[in-house]
């Protein structure tokens, strides 16, 4: 008797389980076929993706700016100098720079002592130069403004060739110098430069090579 009841129970349980499984499998198959038929999934990502190419990223390799400082013209004293520059950064180390500047020669000691004698007219005292130079960032680093703020900086060496118009003549000019570039913002930099402009001058009797040191501070913008 007990065995028959157990058998019946077993039959009922087995039937129920198998039919349940079949139903589950059927519904799973139905889901799969619905997916295949292209019915939308329950959660649809509401994300419109726009592919932006790396080529479209803003490249800022050019730097343009102005500077002001003082230029010592050998024998002609120290005067204010003004200029502008355009640089192109080739690699993280090297850059090329095109610069133009202007200053003015003062009176030589000879002119002051002799009283009336003037070596140059007012117009001839104006000095204009341009140069093309190659620079190298020798010491990239940071300047710390307190414990919370740091500004990227670089010390660079620069040298090149150019032309200086002074004393009613154009002269081939070499320039060498050292500069510091502070970059407080990625688009903006502050420069401090010391540059020696070297050219031959034959104004005072014999030709001699003169060194004209210029120190200036400037701002530049990357674009």
């Amino acid at each position, binding site marked *: 008797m007990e065995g028959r009841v157990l058998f019946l129970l077993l039959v009922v349980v087995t039937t129920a389980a198998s039919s349940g499984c079949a139903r589950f499998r059927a519904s799973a198959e139905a889901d799969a076929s619905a997916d295949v038929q292209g019915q939308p999934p329950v959660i649809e990502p509401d994300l419109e993706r726009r592919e932006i190419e790396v080529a479209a990223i803003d490249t800022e390799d050019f730097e343009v700016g102005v500077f002001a400082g003082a230029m010592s013209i050998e024998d002609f004293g120290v005067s204010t100098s003004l200029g502008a520059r355009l640089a192109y950064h080739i690699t*993280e180390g090297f850059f090329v720079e095109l610069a133009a500047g202007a200053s003015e020669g003062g009176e030589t000691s000879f002119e002051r002592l002799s009283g009336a004698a003037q070596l140059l007219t007012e117009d001839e005292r104006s000095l204009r130069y341009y140069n093309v130079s190659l620079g190298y960032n020798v010491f990239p680093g940071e300047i710390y403004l307190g414990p919370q703020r740091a500004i990227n900086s670089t010390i660079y060496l620069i040298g090149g060739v150019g032309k200086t118009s002074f004393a009613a003549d154009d002269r081939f000019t070499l320039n060498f110098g050292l500069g510091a570039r502070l970059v407080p913002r990625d688009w903006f930099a502050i420069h401090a430069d010391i540059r020696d402009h070297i050219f031959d001058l034959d104004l005072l009797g014999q030709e001699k090579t003169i060194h004209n040191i210029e120190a200036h501070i400037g701002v530049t913008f990357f674009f």
Partner: protein
Amino acid sequence: MLRRLSIVFSFFLVAGVAIAQEDVLQVVIAEPFIEMRTGPAENYPIFFVVDRGERIDVLQRRTTWFKVRAERGQEGWVNAEQLQQTLQLSGAPVEVPSFTLADYADRNWEVGALYGDFGGANVISVFGAFSFTENLSAEVSYSDILGRFSNSQMASVNLVHLLFPEWRVSPYFTLGAGIIRIDPKGTIVAGDDRVDNTAHVGIGVRTYLTRRFVFRAEYKTYVVFTSRDDNEEPSEWKAGFSFFF
């Protein structure tokens, strides 16, 4: 009222997020990590590391360095090699455009500056070139010739034939004509300014350096057609850099 405000606020929030997503390139780190430096050069220290699977925004480029922003707001610089190993959100690899020798063949324009010697005087030249084919280009050049006895300015047009544009170092031939204004220095040589026509032929070598940058050196021989009995035949050598785009 409060509810209306919150709706308006959430609208702006959603709009803001949408705009941010549209404007910025986002990539996913695929390597174990990516290193962020404080500045766009190898010498700057690494201050932050972004792990695999995280996203970064790519903001701007300087030379071969990219300014990126991590998910938690840190901003720093990664180099092109590391960015090349990230993935786009779609899973596709990131293609970082870089210039190679092959791009030189496709150049349209080239500008540069050269320095050298023109018949014993210093010469500084700037030039711009347009390429018709990968071999043939036309140049316009301006030179300041600064000598002991005279200064001159010369403008010329040249045709340049590059023999092997696919080689890193390639010879070229050049042929052209121009005009020169010679200004003798008053204190040494008496004489008036004069303007003469010139013609020249030359050979040179172009060497591809890196990115958009090229080194070139050339030798040219000129004929200056003077109004006197003899023409002048100065020769010129110079070297310099140019970049193409």
